[in-house]
Structure formats: structure tokens, C-alpha cells
């Protein structure tokens, strides 16, 4: 109430100062402040400004260091069980003290404070502190992404009831107004009942730009189950039969019967999953005949796939891009492993055919008219034989191409670039079909939905967006990240999009409602890669902190952290049967992880919603193998339908 009043007084004073007489009167009336004279408020001009902005200039700059020092001493001297939880307030308090000092032109004191205390803070905060330390003037604070974020958001800290009451008692005793103000204004305590967390538990989820996720953030239900596979065999019997006849009955029959036995994944899919989203929740495109044929083909291939495990590791075929130092940025392989697209620094895109079949251009209109439409191989006839090439180049962007994505039917390719546009390319005519302009800044990531039609993008403008290929406007704009959205990924059921950001959080967005349904913190550096597990429940993420984190989407909990790489991890992929997770990094190595074992050992049953379960960090027991390449950082990893692993890397001769 007091605070409200002072704000109003400040406002009143401002109105008075600029001579808005009518407004002032009106305001006085409404705020019940008629008889309060401006002099009573006894506030100077500078104070007006500071109330309006978030930082007050009250207090002697020398007091900051003293009160921070005392706070630190208090934290260190408290009981061991509360110590670590109390410790979490040190970083935000230091940051806001520094910003207040800078704002009030006490840069020297600010510098001194940060120099003295920042080395004691956690390693993963040092990067942000360093960035913050560049800001030494009030003018610098305007437009600085980091300070803006701190200024306009409360830093979220989770605390047990006991710890919080200890903290409150301390604050009341000491009555450091500076400290009190900062804690009131800029910190948000998400209180929970129960035992205070230990150091490891806290460290697991801290590190994000604005603190941890509140309990509320992860309460919504997520339908992480897979959609029911359309029953292709039964629906168009004619198609299936034809197919079977084509391939000679007995041969094609066999694998299909075997399928359910061989691969439990398939049988699961045909049953309806309790966690799957209701049918029709997200409108998906209807399957065309061609798509059905493709599905059948995929299933048949899948029946021949090797079941991977610690005893049967995959083979890796590695494609090295030669003469590509500083020119190649991104690479992507089509779902059926037939095409490879590579994005270049000089705005070009190249598409290679990885199979003997060459890349052809569709005939022009006149010639197409001559093609017999009823012919069985009409699709082949439409293509011009004379144009067969193993590699084709697409020009259109005007900046480095950061990400590429093939449509599931391989007719289309999406690309996003530094020029802020997303382009859709036809792989029949080999031309750009649509240019989606919506993002204002470089677009870092683009992903086609596993069902086609929709795609998602993430950009430097801090938003992720959902688009449909036939619309110039985005269908959804997911805003909430505090920094660049570096990577987006579709959930296998197309109902959700996960986004990873430079604010070190991962968010899960519901495509249908547009809401954020999960907020996951724990990364200590920007996130560059996301992958959903085959059964849809888990999310693997990795990035510049060289660790791979595994998340349980049911509650948004971090379940495992796997450090082993020595440089940023840029690609993750699950094997088709979901047994193995592979990661590829700039340290020129590919690592295989035993995901089956990991999933088995996770204590998913006794999950307490408010508590993060213990995080598995035992790298040794899950790391199956590590394969080094010869000076070739890994750009992409892809499992074929038969579980052969493809890796793409660019050779750095130096």
C-alpha cells in the first residue's frame, strides 16, 4: 500500500512538472489524493525518475557492498541444509545491486562490487556476469538485451517454506533497505512445502537467464503420446493388394506379419495410447495415395531394420564435405535418407542425391501435356531425363543459410537464412516456390512437421513461429523467450513444438492453443539441438555447454545430464527404435548413448511433482562408444529406416 502511494505521488509530481493540470486534477480525484500537496511528497526530480524506472537512487553506494557482504556471510553461516538454497539469491542480488549502482552513476562502486564478489559465484554465471560487466554507464543500459531482461523480469527462485522463513527473518532483523527493495522488486520466490533441496538438485535446474521454472509453468497436461498410425493396410485394400502384387506376394507378406513381433514399437502405435492427443486435436493433412504408398514402403523398410542395443551397435557412414572450411553451415538428410541438403555461408543451398537415382527437373508445360496421365509411372515420365544430375544448387537467399528441412514427402525443402526469410523450394522444378517474410531478424532454425504442411521457425527476434506452407502469415507466434530462439523441434505427434534458446531455457508450446506448456531450465549455455525420443515422452537437448540433458515431458523434469563432449553439441538423433541416442559435436566426435538403459533406470514412478527427481549424471555407464573423425566437426546425424547411421561433417584441413 505504501509502495502504491509513493508511486502515485511520483506520478502526480510528474504530471505537475509537465503542467498537465486537467489530468492532474482528474488523477487526484481518482486516486483519492486530493489534499496531498506535492511538497508533502518531498521528492526530488531524480527520485521521480527512479521510481518510474525500476531502480531507485536511494542509499549510499558504499552500503551496497556492505549489505551484500553481510548477506553472503549470512548464507555461508547458515545451516547446511538451507545453505545451498539460500545461496541461490546471491547471484540475482548481485546483478541487481550492480545494475542499481550503474543506473545511479556509481560505476566505480559497481565495478568494485562485481570484481570482489563475482568470482565466488557459480561457474555458469560467469559468462553473464562478464557480459554484464561491459555495461558501465546508465546510457549503456538502454537497449542492452541482458539488462532489459533483468530489469523487466523477476528472477525466479524456488525455495522451501523453511528456507524462505529463515531468509525473511534475516531480512527483518537486518533491515537493509537496499536488500529488501531488491528482493521485493526483482526476485520472485516460488515456495514449496518439504525439505530444502541439496546442492546437486539446485545446480541441476539453475543457470537460466531469469532463474528457474515455477511450479505453475509445468502444470498443464501434455499429450506426449504418439498419434495412432492410420491403418493403411485396411483402409485402401486395393492399394495394398496392388503393392503386394507388384512385389510378388509371399515376399512382401512375410515382413508384415513379423512386424509386430520384431518391433514392439509398432504394436504400441496401433493400440491407442492414453497419453496421445485426441484425434483431430490438431488438424493434420489427409493422407494422399502417394503418401500411403510411401508409408507402406517405410514400414517394409522398417521391418528389415536392425534392433540396436549395447551389443549391436550401428554402423556409421560418414559423409565428409571437402573444400568446405568456413563455407558450409548446415546440413540435413531427408527422412528416407535419399537426399542431402547443405546450406552455405554464401547463401547457396546444394542438394545431393545419396542414392543412385539422380535429381531431375520436371518437364515444362508443353511437354507435360504429352505425358500420358494414366500411365503407372506418370511421376517418372513427368521428369526430364536430360537434366539428371547428382547435385543441384538452389539460389535465392541473401545471407548464410542456417537451417534446412525436407518435407516428409521429399517434394519440398525449407530453408532459413540470415536475411530473415524462410524459403520453400520445390524439388521437382528446383525453384523457390514461396518466400515467407515474417521474422525481422535472422532465422536460426526451421523444421517441417512430421506430418507435413506445418512448419516451425525460431529466430533472433526471440520468437518461435508456427506456419502452414499455404499461408504467408504465421499461424502462431510463440513469444516468451528472453533471447534468440536457436532451435525448434516438432513433437512426433505434431501437437507441440519445443524451442531452445540463448536464454538457456527450453520451452514446449502447444500448437493448438498457442500456450507455453513446459518451461525447462538447467542448461548453462545456449541450446543448439533438440530431439524427441521415439515414443514421444522424452526430450534430449544439447548446446554450447557441451552437455546432453534428457527431460521428461510428463512433468518437465530433468532426468539426466550427460557431460562428455568437449565442445558445443550441434546435433542429436534417436535411433528409429529409440534405443540409442547419438550426439555430434564440434569436438569432431560422435558419441553413442544407451537410451534404453537410461530410460529403465529413471525413477519415473515416484515422481513428486514439485521436486525434480535425482538427475542421472553417470556418463560412464550410458556412454556406449565414442568415434572421432579426422578434423571434421559434425553438422548432422541421421538414422536411416534400417538404423544405419549417417553423419555429415565438414573437413577442416587446418
Amino acid at each position, binding site marked *: 500500500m505504501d509502495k502504491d502511494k509513493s508511486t502515485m505521488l511520483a506520478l502526480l509530481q510528474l504530471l505537475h512538472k509537465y503542467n498537465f493540470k486537467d489530468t492532474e486534477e482528474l488523477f487526484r480525484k481518482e486516486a483519492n489524493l486530493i489534499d496531498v500537496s506535492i511538497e508533502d511528497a518531498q521528492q526530488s526530480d531524480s527520485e521521480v525518475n527512479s521510481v518510474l524506472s525500476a531502480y531507485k537512487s536511494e542509499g549510499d553506494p558504499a552500503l551496497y557492498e556492505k549489505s551484500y557482504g553481510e548477506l553472503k556471510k549470512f548464507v555461508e553461516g547458515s545451516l547446511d541444509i538451507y545453505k545451498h538454497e539460500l545461496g541461490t539469491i546471491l547471484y540475482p542480488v548481485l546483478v541487481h545491486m550492480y545494475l542499481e549502482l550503474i543506473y545511479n552513476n556509481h560505476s566505480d562502486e559497481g565495478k568494485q562490487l562485481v570484481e570482489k564478489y*563475482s568470482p565466488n559465484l557459480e561457474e555458469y554465471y560467469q559468462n553473464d556476469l562478464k557480459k554484464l*560487466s561491459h555495461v558501465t554507464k546508465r546510457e549503456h543500459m538502454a537497449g542492452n538485451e541482458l539488462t532489459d531482461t533483468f530489469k523487466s523480469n523477476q528472477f525466479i527462485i524456488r525455495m522451501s517454506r523453511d528456507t524462505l522463513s529463515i531468509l525473511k527473518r534475516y531480512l527483518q532483523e537486518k533491515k537493509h533497505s537496499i536488500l529488501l527493495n531488491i528482493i521485493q522488486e526483482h526476485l520472485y520466490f516460488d515456495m514449496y512445502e518439504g525439505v530444502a533441496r541439496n546442492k546437486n538438485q539446485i545446480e541441476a535446474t539453475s543457470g537460466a537467464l531469469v532463474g528457474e521454472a515455477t511450479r505453475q509453468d509445468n502444470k498443464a497436461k501434455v499429450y506426449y503420446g504418439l498419434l495412432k498410425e492410420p491403418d493403411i493396410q485396411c483402409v485402401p485394400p486395393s492399394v495394398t493388394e496392388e503393392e503386394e502384387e507388384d512385389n510378388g506376394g509371399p515376399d512382401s507378406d512375410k515382413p508384415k506379419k513379423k512386424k509386430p513381433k520384431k518391433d514392439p514399437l509398432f504394436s504400441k502405435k496401433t493400440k491407442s495410447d492414453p497419453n496421445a492427443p485426441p484425434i483431430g486435436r490438431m488438424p493434420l493433412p489427409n493422407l494422399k495415395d502417394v503418401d500411403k504408398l510411401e508409408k507402406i514402403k517405410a514400414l517394409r523398410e522398417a521391418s528389415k531394420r536392425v534392433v540396436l542395443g549395447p551389443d549391436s551397435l550401428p554402423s556409421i557412414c560418414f559423409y565428409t564435405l571437402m573444400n568446405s572450411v568456413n*563455407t558450409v553451415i*548446415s546440413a540435413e538428410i531427408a527422412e528416407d535418407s535419399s537426399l542431402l541438403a547443405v546450406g552455405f555461408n554464401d547463401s547457396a543451398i546444394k542438394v545431393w542425391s545419396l542414392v543412385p537415382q539422380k535429381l531431375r527437373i520436371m518437364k515444362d508445360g508443353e511437354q507435360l501435356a504429352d505425358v500420358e496421365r494414366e500411365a503407372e509411372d506418370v511421376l517418372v515420365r513427368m521428369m526430364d531425363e536430360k537434366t539428371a544430375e547428382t547435385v543441384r544448387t538452389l539460389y535465392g537467399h541473401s545471407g*548464410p543459410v542456417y537451417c534446412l528441412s525436407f518435407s516428409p514427402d521429399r517434394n519440398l525443402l525449407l530453408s532459413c537464412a*540470415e536475411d530473415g526469410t524462410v524459403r520453400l523450394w520445390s524439388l521437382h522444378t528446383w525453384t523457390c516456390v514461396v518466400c515467407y517474410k515474417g521474422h525481422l531478424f535472422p532465422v536460426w532454425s526451421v523444421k517441417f512437421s512430421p506430418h507435413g504442411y506445418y512448419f516451425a521457425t525460431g529466430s533472433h527476434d526471440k520468437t518461435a513461429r508456427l506456419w502452414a506452407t499455404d499461408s504467408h502469415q504465421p499461424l502462431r507466434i510463440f513469444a516468451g523467450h528472453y533471447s534468440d530462439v536457436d532451435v525448434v523441434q516438432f513433437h512426433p505427434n505434431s501437437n507441440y513444438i519445443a524451442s531452445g534458446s540463448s536464454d538457456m531455457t527450453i520451452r514446449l508450446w502447444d500448437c493448438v492453443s498457442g500456450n507455453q506448456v513446459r518451461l525447462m531450465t538447467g542448461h548453462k549455455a545456449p541450446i*543448439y539441438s533438440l530431439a524427441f525420443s521415439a515414443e514421444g515422452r522424452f526430450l534430449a537437448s544439447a548446446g554450447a555447454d557441451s552437455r546432453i540433458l534428457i527431460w521428461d515431458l510428463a512433468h518437465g523434469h530433468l532426468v539426466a545430464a550427460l557431460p562428455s563432449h568437449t565442445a558445443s553439441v550441434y546435433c542429436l538423433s534417436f535411433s528409429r527404435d529409440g534405443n540409442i541416442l547419438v550426439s555430434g559435436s564440434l569436438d569432431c566426435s560422435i558419441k553413442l548413448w544407451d537410451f534404453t538403459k537410461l530410460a529403465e533406470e529413471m525413477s519415473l514412478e515416484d515422481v513428486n511433482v514439485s521436486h525434480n527427481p535425482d538427475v542421472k549424471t553417470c556418463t560412464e555407464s550410458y556412454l*556406449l*562408444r565414442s568415434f572421432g573423425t579426422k578434423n571434421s566437426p559434425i*553438422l548432422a546425424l541421421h538414422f536411416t529406416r534400417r538404423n544405419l547411421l549417417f553423419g555429415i561433417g565438414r573437413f577442416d584441413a587446418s
Partner: protein
Amino acid sequence: MSDMEPMYGTTLSTESMKVIAESIGVGNLPDEAAKDLAEDVSYRLKEIIQDATKFMRQGRRQKLSTHDIDHALKTKNIEPTYGFFAKDHIPFRFASGGGRELHFIEEKEIDLNEIISMAGGPNWPKLPLETNLRAHWLCIDGIQPTIPENPPPVSKEVQKLESVDPISNRNSNANIGKPGGKSHKLRNVETVHVKQLATHELSVEQQLYYKEITEACVGSDEARRVEAFQSLSADPGLHEMLARMCTFIAEGVRINVVQNNLAILIYLMRMVKALLDNPSLYLEKYLHELIPSVVTCIVSKQLCTRPEMDNHWALRDFASRLMAQICKNFNTSTNNIQTRVTRIFSQALAKNNQTPLASLYGAIHGLCELGSEVIKALVIPKIKSISERIETCFEGSNSSNVDKNAAGHIKTLLIKSVAPVLKTLRSPPDYIEEYKQEYGYIGPPLCTAVAKARTQPTTIAPTTTISITNNTSQQQTSVNTNKTISQAVVLGASRGTAGTATSGGQKFVILQSRSQTPTTQQQVQQKPTQATKLVVVCMPNANHAQSTVTQSSLSSKPQVFVTQSNVEQFSNPLEE
């Protein structure tokens, strides 16, 4: 708090601001303004660089490029600074003077007209190479094949580290590229052993490979041999077999020197050469076996059964070049290989009159290969005594054909390798008399050679007199300058009592101090430094050597080449 300084980093100096201000026409910028500007500009620069790192990371790189800066400027709505393209890195030059330090980019001014006028010419900028795709197996069913496309299982740095500090990487990278079960087993074994034992298991394939390779190297089929050498010099996965290879070579030299089997010795030296050339191997750990073998082939009194007929000189030449390559690659301030090798050779020279001529030749050649400084310091002072010795061989009535032949070789060698050095040492007028006085018998021809060398302005091409194989040449950049006369160092290295010990001259027996052959430790006149060093290096490998012997499938090495030598006998390998 001393390390806190970098937290606030640097700011631009006010002088820079003033200079920049002047360059855009602002005459005298007040100090206060310059200071404020400097601080602000520094902050803005840091901010831009921070943004640029985002572009670098999204470009999946670890090095910031000029493009990243451009893109960061673009997002801030600032016109990028066009024209600063650097493909890889910007080559800043450093200059200092008057207490100032300066970093600048050295940029040449390019005359466009010139470039256009010679369009298509040799100086025309080259087009960048097309990006292309190349596929290989990184791993097959979880096992990484050791092919040139894959990194070597144990990198050269690790091998190097291992040779310096064997315990360091005991436990690291145990499971790289090896089946899981096996590596687990290994780890368990290691935890049980108190002593750090190196277990070197060779897979069946590796055993087969070893057998094939060694047979091919000393066998009679030249085509196979070439293939084998090719494999030895290029395959990345030989690390584990290296210990055995080196033992094979050492044992081979030991036995075939006694038997005077020139062909086999040449093949073994070519094996050493191939291993040296292999970019993924680090041989330091095995030098204690290799160096004595190589030195033997340089200075042994007799290397072939018919010294007057066979060209054992070629083997000496080849081995000398190998020695020089070893010195070049592995000489460090701690092992002093070059110094020690030089000492061996020069001691042979010192005992001029007792050394057999063939050994003398070897010693001179060995020294000459080590570079012009060595020639200057150690060979040239000896020329006179050497030439006296040659003279007696040529002129003396009781000298055999063999001696004459050897003396002739020494003479040519000296003239060839010493002349270029003398050219630089002596000032132009070359008088035969002077030469004769200074260098004795060999003076006059030397003088002509020097005079001739002066007329050819270019440096003398390091022609290899006799090329043993087509791939021998590369090594020497050093100019083969030479002239010498020698003194012998006989290496009798047979395992039992040395049958070679009979020659009248003095001999130097260099022995490998190996644990399983304690009987041979009777070092007659041994360079102490050399020996101790060898022992030291030997220690970590003792196990390897032993394990070789215990490998039943491998233990029959000696037979391998004994039998081969019978088949092969003396089809002179030098003709090829």
C-alpha cells in the same frame, strides 16, 4: 583479486579517439570528450562482438569471422564495413618501437589494371575448389576401421605423451573404438594390478597382418614388398604393432649383419623408412631399437658377402639419410640424439687408421648427412688424415682391390659433400697448391670441385647418389657436401658371442640393453651416454618386447627371414 582485471577488459585509449577524430576532420577533441567517447565506443564494440559470436555459433564454428561482425552490425541497423573479407583469419602483423606496440594488417595495394591485363595468366586468382562429398565408414557394427579416412586409434600426441609419461593415459580413452566388453575387462584387469602393466593384445587380424607384412617386406616378391611398404607408411592403425615391428627390425639387422645378407638389410632399412614416414606414428619410444640397427647398417665393417662386388655403399648411404631423418624428427634437448649420434661417428673418424675403410665411409656419410655445420666442424678438419689413408690405399702396393674400391668411394663422397661447404668457407681464388697443402692427396680434385661449384650459382641439388627405392628421396634438404676418409666402427650385434669381433681394428659394439638378452651385455668400448639413454627409453617397453616373444604365432621371426634369405639370396635389390 589480481585475476579480476580481465573482467573489465580493456578500453580504447583516448589517443586513438583523437586520431580517429582528426581523420574525420575534428581538429582538437577535448580530453574529456575523448575519454567519454573511448568508453562508449569500447562498450559498443564489445556489444557488437557479443552479437557476432551468436552468428559464429550458429555457423557452427569456433572462430569469429569478419562476416559475423558484418551480420551483427546489420541486425543493429548499421551499415556493415564492406571489403574486409578474410577467408580464415586476419593476419595481423606486430610491430613495436619507442615503447609502443602496434598491430596492423599488412595489405598490398593491388593494381587492378595489372590483374585485368593478365587475365587468365598464372597470377590470376584461383577459383575456390568446389565443395564435394566423400563417404566412408566411420564405424562398422560399432568398431571403427583403421583406414586413412579415420583418425588413428591413438593420436600422435597421445603416443608422444605416452613415451614421455607412460602412466598418464593408462586409464583414459580405454574404450575408444573397441568393443565394450573388452574394454570393461581391461579396466578390471587394471584395477587389480598394482603394477602398471601394459597389456598389448593383438587381435587375430593384427597378428595376420603382422605376419603378412613382415613376410612381404623381406620376401622375394617385389610387388608385394612395395605394397607392404606402402601400407607401413600410410596405415593409421599400426600403433599397437609398432613394438613388434621394431623388434623385428632390430633382430633382423642383428642376424643379417652377421650373415652379411645385404638384401635383407636393405629391406629392413626400407621398413624403418616406411615407419618413419607414417604420419600417424610416433617412434620415439622405439628409437632404442631402431638407432643401433640403423647405425649398424651405416658403419658395419662388412655388410655383404662379396664386398668387392656388391653395392653395400648404397645401403650405407640410405641408412645415413635415415639417421639424419631420425635426428631431425626426434632430437630434443633431453635425449640429445643428434649429439650422441654425431659423437659416435666422429669418434670413428678420430681413430682413422684403425677403422676399416668401409666403416670409415659410413661414418663420413653419416656425418655429412647431418648438415653443413657438422661437416664444417667435424669432417673438414679430418680431411687431411683421411686423404693420407686413401693415398696409401691407392698408391700402396699391398692394398687389395677392395681397399682401392673403398678408397675410391670415400674420395667421391668427400668431394661431393665437402665441396659445397668449402665453397662457402673459402674465398674465391682456389689454388691447387693451397688445397693440396691443406687437404693432402685429395686436395687437387677437391679444388676443381669447389671451382666448379662456384660456377654453378644454384645450390647443389641434393641428389641421392643411389636411390634404393623410388620413395627414398624426399628427406634431405641438407646439401650433401662431403669429403672424408674414415675409420671404422664395427657393429657386431649378434645375439650370442659376437663372431665379428675378430677384425684387427678397434671396434665399437653398440648393444641394445634388453632384458631378455643379458648375455650380450659385454660392451667393449661403449659410449656411456648412448647406452644409458637406451636403457632409459627401454624400460617402459620391456613388456612389449617380452610379449612379442611370447606370442606363439609371432615368435618364429628369425626363421622367417633366414628362410627367405635362402630363397632370395642375392638378386641385387639395388637394381630395381
